[in-house]
């Protein structure tokens, strides 16, 4: 779950990471109020989850109310790389003496936490990695041991952070690490981390990705879920707790298991079709889950055929079959279904489908994944 900048800063603040005073604003009036509260000069920043906001004109400095009115009016509703700006973050503008980069993530190869720290901030870290890899200090941290202040300070020294910013940087690193580990982040990144002329170090931006698996111990994340950037189909899928990702094609996909669902997309593509979505109904899917999945697929107007690809492990064939029969009773499906059913209790499942008396124009079975993909793609093209 990716957070917007303002949410990331609010999340940082929970862990005492210093950020500029500011507030979110959905209207010009709210932007003016936020600016008054933060104190001029202020920065008006578009809240979209895409890079290059500044270049697109989505970040502007304002010295007074007139300028806030102009900039907020221009930025709200602006389209930045396909993301429409519905919300601003208005914060007190900071004097910047120097800019750094800091992030914590999981290094999957090393199976340790990874600190990346650089005295070159405010630019894309990938570009620094390319042009001057030695400018980035990489430090592995054992998740069981954690990060202490002395180690953090040494990392800052190694990254050639200037003397006057060392203590402030080390302090923020320890807090950012807590945010990352206790706060269940996949990524906690500050770019730029700034040094002010007064000697204080603070976070000027915030990029936070939360681990959705940890939702059960973070009731405070509920508000983030409400603002997730989802299309209508994804929003509907979410109300049914389905693992759904909307795509642009015409073959609706339902599969059990993430790998099989990915593979189904690939096979549809190989035989000349295109998938309308990724949908993994997971292990233990029952009749209700299958019915909900079909409802979500049916909602997508681009779908002209539906490919259900089930290989039974936890998911039992008869459950899948019951779900389809039930869903066909509940939803008036616009598109025909092609199903490939194998694995645990597949025969019982096929029997249930055969006994249900569903016309072949609405539902047909194919023996293999490739055959089913070809049939579904052919139906989608007719």
């Amino acid at each position, binding site marked *: 779950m990716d957070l917007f900048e303002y949410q990331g800063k609010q999340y940082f603040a929970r862990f005492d990471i210093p950020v500029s005073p500011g507030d979110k604003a959905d209207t010009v009036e709210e932007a003016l109020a936020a600016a008054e509260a933060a104190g001029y000069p202020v920065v008006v920043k578009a809240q979209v989850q895409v890079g290059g906001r500044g270049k697109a004109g989505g970040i502007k400095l304002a010295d007074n109310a007139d300028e806030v009115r102009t900039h907020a009016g221009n930025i709200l509703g602006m389209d930045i790389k396909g993301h429409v700006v519905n919300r601003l973050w208005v914060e007190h503008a900071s004097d910047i003496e120097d800019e750094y980069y800091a992030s914590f993530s*999981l290094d*999957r*190869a090393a*199976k*340790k*936490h990874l600190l990346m720290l650089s005295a070159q901030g405010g630019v894309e870290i*990938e570009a620094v990695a390319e042009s001057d890899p030695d400018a980035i200090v990489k430090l592995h941290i*054992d*998740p*069981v041991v954690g990060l202490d202040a002395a180690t953090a300070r040494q990392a800052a020294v190694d990254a050639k952070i200037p003397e006057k910013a060392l203590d402030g940087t080390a302090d923020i690193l320890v807090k950012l690490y807590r945010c990352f*580990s206790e706060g*269940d982040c*996949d990524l906690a990144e500050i770019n730029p981390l700034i040094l002010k002329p007064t000697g204080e170090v603070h976070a000027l931006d915030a990029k936070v990705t939360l*681990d959705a*698996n*940890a939702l*059960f*111990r973070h009731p405070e994340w509920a508000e983030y879920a409400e603002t997730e950037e989802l299309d209508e189909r994804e929003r509907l899928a979410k109300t049914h707790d389905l*693992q759904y*990702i909307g*795509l642009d094609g015409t073959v609706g996909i339902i*599969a*059990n*298991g*993430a*790998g*099989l*669902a*990915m*593979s189904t*997309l*690939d*096979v549809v*593509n*190989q035989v000349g079709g295109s*998938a309308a979505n*990724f949908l*993994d109904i*997971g*292990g*233990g899917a029952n009749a209700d889950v299958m019915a909900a999945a079909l409802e979500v697929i049916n909602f997508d107007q681009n779908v002209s055929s539906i490919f259900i690809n089930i*290989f*039974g*492990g*936890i998911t039992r064939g008869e459950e899948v079959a019951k779900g389809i029969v039930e869903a066909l009773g509940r939803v008036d499906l616009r598109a025909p279904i092609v199903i490939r059913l*194998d*694995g*645990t209790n597949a025969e019982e499942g096929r029997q249930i489908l055969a006994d249900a008396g569903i016309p072949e124009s609405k539902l047909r079975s194919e023996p*293999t*994944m*490739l055959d089913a993909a070809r049939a579904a793609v052919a139906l989608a093209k007719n």
Partner: protein
Amino acid sequence: MSIFVNENTKVIVQGLTGGQGKYHGLRNRDYGTNVVAGVTPGKGGQDVEGIPIFDSVADAVAATGADASFVAVPPKAAPAAILEAAAAGVSFVVCITEGIPAQDEARVFNTLLADYPNTRLLGPNCPGIISPGKCNIGITAGEIALPPSAEGPNVGIVSRSGTLTYQALYELKQKGIGVSTCVGIGGDPVPGTNFIDCLSEFQADPDTHAIIMIGEIGGSAEEEAADFIKANVTKPMSAYIAGVTAPAGKKMGHAGAIVSGGKGTAQGKMDALAEAGVKIGLNPTEAGELMAEIVANLS
């Protein structure tokens, strides 16, 4: 032979009194696995269809001599359950639980590494392991796996995806090819057992003659495996990587399956494996067909 488990493996099921634990634990026993005990705190002394329940893994191990555990408890409880099994001396722990926070997985992995080096964790979020005809721990439907033949050639399977693991077993069974062991390592960011662990065991196992590997987008495990194969694996291999058409920046169901910053693409993984001499199928069926050709050349 087989890897990690065999006909003598004694298995306890942590969570045998719960829905998933009971369903799959009993299926495993019906398959022929030595399921010797179940563990549920507070339910010691009861039994599930004749399998005795103990309050702790330590009690269960003391009473039965179990050396493997099947963890089938919810995400909140799974990290503690895995570590409890390790502390009780269980050497092989299979965890099927989906949805464990990545921070917990990283802590469990590094705790095992430091404090319980003799315990191997398979998973979490994996289908488990099956040595057809000998032992099945996890959620694999045993009937889709063909036992290895004494004369061979037999194939070892290692996979990051659950349902694609079954698909691979099924493809081989239809072609009459026996499987020595099939290991599902799971799709999470910090798997306890990785491709290299399994490839190294398969390379050493005299009854495994060829290997199928199934990967997916995200991370660099397949690329690391390719380096290992180049240097250490002499047995012929075929592979399939899921997610060729996955858009960047979208998690494809598994917590570990995401293409980010141009890294972890299916194409990059296929290229690395092909470079290491692995035959690449563009779908699971094709990987199975390539394996059938390999096996035909071996026999």
